[in-house]
């Protein structure tokens, strides 16, 4: 059994009307007035906004008062890595008595730049101070820079070089070199 055309038109009409029939259950003059009142209020209480601004300002001030921390991060220390005063890689160097001792590579490469290195070391120590606050301080004896060389000292330690014998060149030697 099927519907006739009039029934079908009626069903279509009723389905369409049924899709948009109804009335709001929770919207009315009172709810709209309440929503308007709520939306007209400032989102944040004034005192809360002021407190937030002050808190941010305090945090910025606090951060700026600790420049060492930021200096440390610029120095490139990986986060979480321990801070140490370990010297750089060592290379062997002969000592006067013939033994092989280790010396810092940087010192060998730039033996007369002690002031720059000392400043860097002082900065690193100062930077690490807040981190090691409360720990007993490690006292290190002062290291005096080596005395500079004078002509008198050079005279007292003459450098003896054994004689080198060099035979004079001949035309036959030159001919042999060209063939090679």
């Amino acid at each position, binding site marked *: *059994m*099927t*519907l*006739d*055309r009039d*029934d*079908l*038109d*009626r*069903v*279509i*009409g*009723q*389905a*369409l*009307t*049924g*899709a*948009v*029939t*109804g*009335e*709001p*259950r*929770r*919207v*009315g*003059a009172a*709810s*709209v*007035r309440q*929503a*308007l009142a709520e*939306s007209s209020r400032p989102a944040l209480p004034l005192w809360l906004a002021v407190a937030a601004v002050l808190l941010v300002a305090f945090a910025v001030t606090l951060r700026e008062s600790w420049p060492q921390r930021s200096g440390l991060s610029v120095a490139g220390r990986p986060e979480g890595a321990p801070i140490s005063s370990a010297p750089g890689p060592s290379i062997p160097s002969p000592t006067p008595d013939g033994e092989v001792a280790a010396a810092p590579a940087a010192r060998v490469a730039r033996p007369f730049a002690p002031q720059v290195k000392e400043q860097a070391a002082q900065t690193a120590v100062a930077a690490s101070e807040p981190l090691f606050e409360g720990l007993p301080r490690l006292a290190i004896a002062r290291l005096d820079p080596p005395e500079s060389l004078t002509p008198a000292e050079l005279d007292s330690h003459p450098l003896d070089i054994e004689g080198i014998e060099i035979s004079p060149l001949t035309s036959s030697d030159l001919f042999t070199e060209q063939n090679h």
Partner: protein
Amino acid sequence: MECVTDEELVHRAQNGDPAAFDEIVERHKDAVFRAALAALRNREDAEDVTQETFITAFRKLHTFRGESQVRTWLSRIAWNRSMDHRRRGRLRRFLRLDAPDAPEIATAQADPERVTLAGSVHDRVRREIERLPLNLRDTILLASTGDMDYASIARTLGVREGTIKSRVFEARALLRSALKDAAR
């Protein structure tokens, strides 16, 4: 306030009479809700849009010049808010007509077999409505609210009145064609 016109209510509300705006809300909330329902086909969302519509209307009350009816003006706001909802993609779950909201099918004869058949056809009609092109579906559902004439619907949708007529005609023809095997 029963005998006061919409225009007079708006005038009073513009001059700061809160009771006048309350009356506007009470008079038109059903029509606004149905317009939103036609667009969204979800009652919760339609209620939200109805509320938002009156809040927007209150704030823009000073812009109402009386060039259209108050109901048309409100319906246009509701339609725009509904389109915002659609665009934001909040309403992916709405694309189904709720069965409890569909009215019982009135039948001239109390024939049980006929009533059952009409019920199954009703379900099919709802599915076919969902398959209509969006512009046809919006138009025919808005027209089915019975709250606005074609001219007002045209203003609400921002198209010509003739376009509304042709869309309604085409939508009905598509539905009949899709359901012709159910008809004798």
